[in-house]
């Protein structure tokens, strides 16, 4: 089947099997910043924003996302013009192996869109669907705090 998604601001037509997940379709189409982890909605490596909501792309049929807006971590910024959340992750040392980082950045971005000044418990709660096996999360929480401050002009 075929469907149009608006991905990172651009409309694009995708062809895929009717039972394909959004994760499979996007990765097969070159969006490899979306990582494949557990494939059961537990690790958060594959999250994207679907119509503004953070979702596990491994738990969504591509057919159900037809016509919707998708943002991956590449849609937030790139190495030349990073989003404040991306810069904060680098500056805080919140990246080790990097596999969870696209998901963590998107989860943090999603939180800060709704709640620009979260406390630590709100940050941890917003990241409850994203696993990191390297950092122990301390630096990641610091990064979100730093990003929040910078986005409010305090950094």
């Amino acid at each position: 089947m075929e469907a149009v998604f608006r991905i990172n601001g651009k409309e694009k037509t995708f062809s895929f099997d009717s039972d394909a997940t959004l994760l499979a379709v996007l990765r097969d189409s070159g969006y490899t910043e979306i990582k494949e982890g557990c494939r059961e909605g537990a690790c958060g490596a594959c999250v994207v924003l679907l119509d503004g909501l953070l979702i596990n792309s491994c738990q969504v049929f591509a057919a159900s996302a037809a016509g919707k807006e998708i943002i991956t971590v590449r849609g937030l910024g790139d190495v030349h013009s990073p989003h404040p959340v991306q810069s904060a992750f680098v500056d805080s040392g919140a990246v080790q192996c990097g596999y969870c980082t696209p998901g963590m950045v998107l989860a943090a971005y999603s939180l800060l869109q709704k709640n620009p000044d979260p406390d630590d418990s709100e940050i941890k709660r917003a990241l409850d669907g994203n696993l990191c096996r390297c950092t122990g999360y301390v630096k990641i929480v610091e990064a979100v705090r730093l990003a929040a401050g910078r986005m409010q002009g305090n950094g």
Partner: protein
Amino acid sequence: MREIRWYYPENLKQLPDLLKREGVIPHGGGTGILRGSLNHIEGLIDLGNLQLRYVRYRNGKIEVGAGTTYADLIEHLSGTDPDHILVKALKAAASTPLRNRITVGGSAAFFPVWSDLMGPLLALDAEVTLTGEKGGSYSLSDYTKNGELRKMSLITSVQWKNKSWTSFYHRESRTKVDYPVFSISILLKVRKDTIEDIKIIIVGTARRFTQCLQIEESLKSLTLDQARIEGIGSKLDVQFTGRRNFSAEYLKHCVGIQLERGLKAILRS
């Protein structure tokens, strides 16, 4: 590769015919469907265009559209009643990205053993409204017990009386992020230090859920000082089936302890 046919109805009138088709099932958030085998599925009815994502107040009831996600409901109720039992329960369910996707209707229809939704809804005496072959309103309790109601029908909304309760919710799991093996939902209404009403639902028992009617009756009309909680757990008439990590006896023991703790906490509050 076997093709699954997708249907995108634009209004509820199109649903009954689609629901009659062999192997065709509704798709809300899709998280439950993706957990099972797709082998028996011939078609999926995407409910995304049916305007079923809402929370509204009508005739003294809260009505929640079947397409409302856990995150939607938490956000709505947190604004009006932050201590609502559904806020406590759904905040503990799954994770942020999954709560953005799991729908109330799908969860009520699917009723997984780990559900954090069903205990609170059953305690609230919720009703479901169905469209399709068995269209109409039914108590959620009847809906879960009667498989016929689920055939060729779709939940379009869940509603319950908008009353103020003191609440307690406990989910028993090995770790915070694990599925609960059982959950306890307690609702309490006290007037002038006397227990006017109490509801206790345990989800995850051998019969999927158990309402603790005897305990409820034994506590009603007592003053808070008269209510004796010690020993209630050991008298609890509830059966579990053994799981991979827990024997039935162990679960019964645990639920008794947690029920006593819950009752003490809610009576203190």
